[in-house]
């Protein structure tokens, strides 16, 4: 491209080439029941690129040892890799300081940490935590448990028929008894992208901190925790092309400093006697015991992978794919999409007239199309729409129009079987 080229002359090829990216993911290239695999279950867990698989193997083959305690070479290499991954997370979500990044077992563990160490000490009888109708069970049950213990209550901000948060209703729920807002950033069941900036501003205006469940946002959006001014942000590596069993809790330093430890054990202490124990500083205070060292290294490799992509191009590509899928599905008689928010990411949750999602899932699988059928750990969403379950196709940037075409054919086949 020359400097004089006009916009129209510029090649549309960018740093993001979907077919090249696809080649990075070995699992995508196989046949399932005689059909090329169309992997459309990314919201449950995503596949890993060769770069992540190889970095994990390289680390385990050469540098593995326990961290933070060895004088020997391998322990130092492992510590450097583990703490290096923390620095990558800092950059990736634009945190202010590495003390703000806690490695956990995943989103669920991150939320439970906040429930236990932040919410438990501040909640008193009659206090409130606000969630929304579209939460994943992992952003409901920890609050229910802690509220029951403290005599506090959960208030639920409603959603409309398109699956969008009713933001004015949410704002009305904020009151002097509100101690925390816990909200999903992107809904796993509906794909809705919540107006989190507005929600955070409204909560902060009332002095209320906000936790965002970012499990589904991280693989689709670039998240800047300082720009959002969010207080806690939780996500899992396995939904962003990294390994299972590891995730992150971001927390503002002042909040994390003020919180008691989550679990007791090694690494989270500085001095232990039977009379008194001195806790370690951040982030070690929240990382008791030997962590998932290899998992953290794999998370770091997934971040490296994501950071070399052109995210403007990725989001445009994903939006185009979602539009394409939405159009195709809307053309099939008897198919209804659940979740039609204006702001939406990469989820096609749908019903077929008279056919149960469990049957749909089985027939799609025999057509090589991997989807999830069920309540997607979001039963209140199903109750809101008075349905038992949906079939959900969820996309990643490595999916293409062939995958969507396979979905379209498989849905038509399903209808045929039942006709």
């Amino acid at each position: 491209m020359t400097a004089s080229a006009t916009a129209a002359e510029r090649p549309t090829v960018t740093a993001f080439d979907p077919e090249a990216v696809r080649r990075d993911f070995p699992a995508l290239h196989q046949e399932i029941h005689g059909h090329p695999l169309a992997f459309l279950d990314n919201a449950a867990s995503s596949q890993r690129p060769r770069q992540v698989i190889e970095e994990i193997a390289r680390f385990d083959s050469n540098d593995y040892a326990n961290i933070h305690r060895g004088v020997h070479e391998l322990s130092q290499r492992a510590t450097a890799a583990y703490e290096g991954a923390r620095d990558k997370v800092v950059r990736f979500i634009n945190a202010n300081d590495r003390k703000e990044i806690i490695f956990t077992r995943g989103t669920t563990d991150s939320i439970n940490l906040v429930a236990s160490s932040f919410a438990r000490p501040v909640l008193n009888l009659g206090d409130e935590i606000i969630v929304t109708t579209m939460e994943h069970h992992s952003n409901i049950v920890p609050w229910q448990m802690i509220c029951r213990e403290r005599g506090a209550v959960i208030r639920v901000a409603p959603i409309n028929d398109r699956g969008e948060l009713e933001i004015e209703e949410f704002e009305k729920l904020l009151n002097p008894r509100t101690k925390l807002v816990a909200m999903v950033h992107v809904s796993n069941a509906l794909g809705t992208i919540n107006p989190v900036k507005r929600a955070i501003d409204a909560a902060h205006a009332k002095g209320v901190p906000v936790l965002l469940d970012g499990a589904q946002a991280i693989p689709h959006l670039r998240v800047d925790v300082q720009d959002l001014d969010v207080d806690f942000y939780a996500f899992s590596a396995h939904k962003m092309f990294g390994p299972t069993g590891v995730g992150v809790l971001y927390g503002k330093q002042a909040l994390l400093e003020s919180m008691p430890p989550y679990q007791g054990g090694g690494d989270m202490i500085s001095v232990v006697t039977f009379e008194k124990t001195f806790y370690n500083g951040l982030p070690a205070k929240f990382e008791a015991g030997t962590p998932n060292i290899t998992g953290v290294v794999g998370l770091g490799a997934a971040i490296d992978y994501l950071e070399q992509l052109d995210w403007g191009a990725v989001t445009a590509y994903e939006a185009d794919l979602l539009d394409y899928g939405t159009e195709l599905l809307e053309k099939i008689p008897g198919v209804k999409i659940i979740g039609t928010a204006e702001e939406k990411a990469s989820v096609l949750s749908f019903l077929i007239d008279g056919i149960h999602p469990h049957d749909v899932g089985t027939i799609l699988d025999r057509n090589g199309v991997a989807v999830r059928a069920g309540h997607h750990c979001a039963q209140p969403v199903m109750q809101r729409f008075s349905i038992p379950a949906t079939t959900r196709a969820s996309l990643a940037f490595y999916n293409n129009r062939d995958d969507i075409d396979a979905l379209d054919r498989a849905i038509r086949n399903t209808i045929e079987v039942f006709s």
Partner: protein
Amino acid sequence: MNEELRDLYQDVIIEHSKRPRNNRALEAPANSAQGYNPLCGDQVKIYVRMDDGKVADVAFEGAGCAISTASASVMTETLKGMSADEAEALFTSFHDLVTGAAGPDDEDLGKLAVFGGVSEFPARVKCATLCWHTLRAAIAGQEDPVTTE
């Protein structure tokens, strides 16, 4: 169409799933039990009235996917007049059939043989057996909901 799919979704199964038999509640006096498949959220309630040690009437409410609805429907058709022991023996044969431990010709399963295709779909075995587990609880007068997990 894929042959295994055709075996699973036989016409009889599709037909029963669309027009289930005995899909109603029984008035008291009748035993009932609730069954739940946490994997997919399906729920079934089985009612049974025993008379003189035999099934006088049996019916169901709820269910969900085609396999679980058809299974409950065909089950209720098959059971009338059987003793609890006969029902239990039939369940054992049915279980062997859907888990692939026995072929459809191994036992005298009558209409239940249409569920032989389920054995190729391990993820669907619980859909076919939920109503049977729940029936067993209903006959026994068990209060706690039955779950497949």
